[in-house]
Every structure is written in structure tokens, then in C-alpha cells.
């Protein structure tokens, strides 16, 4: 039978390899928060198998599960058969978009990025009181969440870079638009070109970003190849800061939440910890850490499309923070900070922030 959809052409063999063991139920954050097997990784594979077998077809009925996956890859990491569920889901989403069955939040997001340069359709980013330089050694790329939602974290990051006398500049950013490919749409070439142009115009040798997702996009997507072809390195601020001797210290009990986009997707686990351990010797790990880290629930577009479940997932992660006894949870992703902060109950006395924000606060205290 000729394959009807791209997901089958690309991933038929993997989908068949799913042996229905259900082990993914132990780690899938969406399942963990909802206890609904239809939303679990196995459930998604069973549906796609039935589509491949012609038993059902792609349709609006499948939106609720195909577009409710944070793409955290915990399932893949634990799958005895090595099924790469998030990758399969991304292609299936594209097939869904092609037949006109897309979650309205994402159709909306795609439209927003046609008219605006950020996913929130905001008109003005704060300029953080910094002059944009014509030339600099580094470009600091905030990403949409940093520019329009977690502005304090971005302000803090810039303050830290200033104090360390780093030669950087901001640019007029456009959304890296990486999220579009995850939800079934192509990258927005106009926005990509804008970013490439503006970064190259500064002559910067590297881009430092606070957003692991932007880092992945600029480092990995073919559309950003012109940037890499000119030798521009893209790194996350956690990698940049690790070699600095900040000379700061706190006795607070601190833990670290591995963002999916930095951890499982990029394999970066130790650099952030190196920095944190220097600042906070009283460091504890969460029950699930490194490659086993529990997803905060924001990724893959889920925070935009299924906000209630997204926040429930973040609540589960915060329970682990409580279990660890830590008073501070640091992370390297603005999206994680945002979702965890929204999920935090008033009675939970936990500080949630980026490592850079924490460094900034320690610097202020020291003065």
C-alpha cells in the first residue's frame, strides 16, 4: 500500500517498532498530568499505526493528541524499542496542517508571525535601555519569551554581561521561528533572513542566547546555515558563563531543572551545574535529573494550546522541587521559568529563576 502521508514515508519502520509495552507512561509528562492513555506516547503511536493500516484517517479528531506533545523526548529516552516519538509527531503535525486539521493556536501562531516579528503579536519590545551597537564581538539574542514575558530575566542577563564587561550588542530581533517547524509549519523565511542579516551586520563572532530553543534553532536548522557558514558560533549563556570566575557565593539550598531543549535535546547537562556549584555549594539534584529530567510542560507549543495541562505538568515538577528541599530552583530556559512560576502555588516558598538572574541577584547583594 502506497504511503499516504509524510510521517509514514519517513517513520513507518519506527512506528512499527513500537511494541506497545507502555513503558513511556512512566515518563511522559502529558500522561503524568492527565492519566489519559490517548495522550501518551504509546497512544499516539497506536493512532498513527491505525492511520497507516487504513483503519482511521488523519482528521480533526486527532488534533487533541497530535498537538499535545511537549516534544520533551522522555519517551524516546526510555523506549526499549528506541522509537523517536517527538520526531514522528512533528512530521505528523505537518501532515495534519496539510489537510487543514491544525490546532487553532498554531494556525494562529503561524499567522501572527506573518504579520509580526514575535509570537505574541506584541508591537514593542522593551529596549532594556541599551544602545544597539553597530559592531560587537557578541550578539545577545533574547528570544520571544525573554523579550516579552520574562523581561526581568533578560534585564538581569544583560546586567551580568555588562558587569563582566562583555562586548555585546542587542539587535532588532525577529522570532527565530523554530517553533513553527515543530507544529507543522515551515520556518518563516522572512524572519530567518532578518535575523541572519542583522547578526552578520554586527560582525559578531558568536551569538549568546538565553533561550535553548533559539540556540537549537540557530545551530541546527538548515535555514540558518548561512550564519554558520560565516563561522558564527551560537551558544547558550550557560556555556558562555561557565568559564568566568564570578567570585560569588550563597549558602542557600539550590537545585537545577534541566530544560528539555538544553538537556535531552543538546546533551548540555554539566556546564550549568559547573557554574551553579561554584556559586552554591549546597546543591542538590531533583529526583529526576540529567537525561531523566521531568519536562516543565511548556514546550512543543503545549503552553499555547493546552495551557491548563501545561501548568499541571509544571506543578508536578514543582512537587519534585519541594521533595528535594531546595529553596531555589535554577534553570536555563525562560519558558521553563515562565511555566514553573505560573504553576507555583502561593504557599510554596520557592524561588524560580534563570541561573543568570540568580548571579545578577548575588552580584547586587555583594555590592
Amino acid at each position: 500500500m502506497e504511503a499516504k502521508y509524510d510521517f509514514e514515508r519517513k517513520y513507518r519502520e519506527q512506528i512499527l517498532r513500537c511494541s506497545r509495552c507502555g513503558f513511556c507512561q512512566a515518563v511522559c509528562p502529558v500522561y503524568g498530568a492527565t492519566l489519559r492513555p490517548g495522550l501518551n506516547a504509546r497512544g499516539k503511536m497506536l493512532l498513527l499505526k491505525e492511520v497507516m493500516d487504513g483503519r482511521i484517517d488523519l482528521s480533526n479528531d486527532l488534533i487533541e493528541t497530535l498537538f499535545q506533545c511537549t516534544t520533551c523526548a522522555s519517551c524516546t529516552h526510555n523506549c526499549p524499542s528506541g522509537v523517536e516519538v517527538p520526531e514522528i509527531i512533528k512530521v505528523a503535525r505537518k501532515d495534519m496542517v496539510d489537510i487543514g486539521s491544525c490546532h487553532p493556536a498554531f494556525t494562529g501562531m503561524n499567522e501572527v508571525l506573518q504579520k509580526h516579528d514575535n509570537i505574541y503579536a506584541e508591537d514593542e519590545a522593551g529596549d532594556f535601555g541599551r544602545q544597539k551597537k553597530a559592531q560587537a564581538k557578541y550578539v545577545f539574542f533574547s528570544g520571544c519569551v525573554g523579550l516579552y514575558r520574562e523581561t526581568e530575566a533578560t534585564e538581569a542577563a544583560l546586567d551580568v554581561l555588562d558587569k563582566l564587561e562583555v562586548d555585546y550588542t542587542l539587535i532588532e530581533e525577529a522570532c527565530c521561528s523554530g517553533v513553527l517547524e515543530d507544529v507543522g509549519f515551515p520556518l518563516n523565511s522572512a524572519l530567518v533572513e532578518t535575523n541572519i542579516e542583522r547578526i552578520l551586520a554586527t560582525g559578531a563572532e558568536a551569538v549568546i542566547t538565553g533561550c535553548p530553543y533559539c540556540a537549537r534553532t540557530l545551530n541546527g536548522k538548515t535555514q540558518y546555515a548561512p550564519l554558520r557558514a560565516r563561522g558564527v558560533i551560537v551558544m547558550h549563556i550557560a556555556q558562555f558563563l561557565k568559564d568566568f570566575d564570578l567570585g560569588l557565593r550563597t549558602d542557600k539550598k539550590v537545585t537545577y531543572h534541566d530544560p528539555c531543549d538544553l538537556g535531552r535535546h543538546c546533551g548540555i547537562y554539566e556546564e550549568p551545574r559547573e557554574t551553579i556549584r561554584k556559586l552554591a555549594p549546597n546543591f542538590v539534584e531533583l529526583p529526576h535529573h540529567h537525561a531523566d529530567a521531568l519536562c516543565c510542560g511548556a514546550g512543543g507549543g503545549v503552553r499555547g494550546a493546552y495551557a491548563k495541562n501545561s501548568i499541571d505538568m509544571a506543578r508536578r515538577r514543582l512537587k519534585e522541587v519541594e521533595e528535594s528541599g531546595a529553596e531555589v530552583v535554577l534553570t536555563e530556559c525562560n519558558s521553563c521559568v515562565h511555566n514553573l512560576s505560573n504553576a507555583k502555588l502561593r504557599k510554596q516558598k520557592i524561588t524560580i529563576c534563570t541561573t543568570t538572574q540568580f548571579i545578577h541577584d548575588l552580584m547586587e547583594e555583594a555590592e
Partner: protein
Amino acid sequence: MEFESYNMPDELYYEPNHYWVRQEGDLLVMGMDDFARKLAGQIVFVQLPDEGKAIKLGKKFASVESGKWLGKVYAPVNGEIAGVNEELETNPGLINQDCYGAGWMYKIKPDDMGEVQNLLHGTEAVQKWLTEEIAKFAKSS
């Protein structure tokens, strides 16, 4: 009153960013009005500041989020937070269900109760304001 399909109770006072205020003894109760609620869509997060936090007239003291929108909540008067609707912590959708009743958001102890009179009030004033707002949002959508 019902105006252009929006329910805007006459006895309430309205802050121009679409929050309503009413007196309750020597406190004020504050919430989101029907216009904003409809525009925002399903509310997913309401920031609930600590009791005792001082608020300054016209300054942002909290934020509200729906799936697609982040709204700033501005203080309608000078004063301090006297209480918050804790139900909203786990059920922010109460605002969508009943924005004037169970979905109330904040209780404020005003420095000067008289400042309430500076807010929009009365059928005529509210209707005029709402007409302008409807036109404003129709243009940008």
C-alpha cells in the same frame, strides 16, 4: 446593563483597562469586566500578590494570562492588597465563568475611598467608553 452584547453592571466602577471595582464595606473588590474577558479568551494564569503589598494608582501590580495574551493589571486607586481570590490559583477559569461574582480577583484597602469616584461609572459614561473601546479593538484585529 447589556450593551452591544457585553454585560456591564451599572452599579460598578470601571478602570479603563477593563477592570471593575465595587465597594464592600471599607474595602474594594476588583475583577475583570466582560469585555476584557471575551477578548482574552480562556484565562490560564492570574498573578496573586501577597496581602499587604502596596499599590499605586495607575501602576501595574499584577498580570493575567490567557493562551495568547498577557495583560497587565493596573491599580485603580492608591492602597494595599487586602486579599486575593485564592480559588483562582488552581481555577483561573472562574474569571471566564463568572467574572463579576465567583471570579473576583483582588480585595483592596484604599488610602482614600473617594478615589473610586474618578473611575468610569454610570450608564451613559460606560456606554460612551465602551463604544470607543469596541471601535479601537475592531480596527486592530
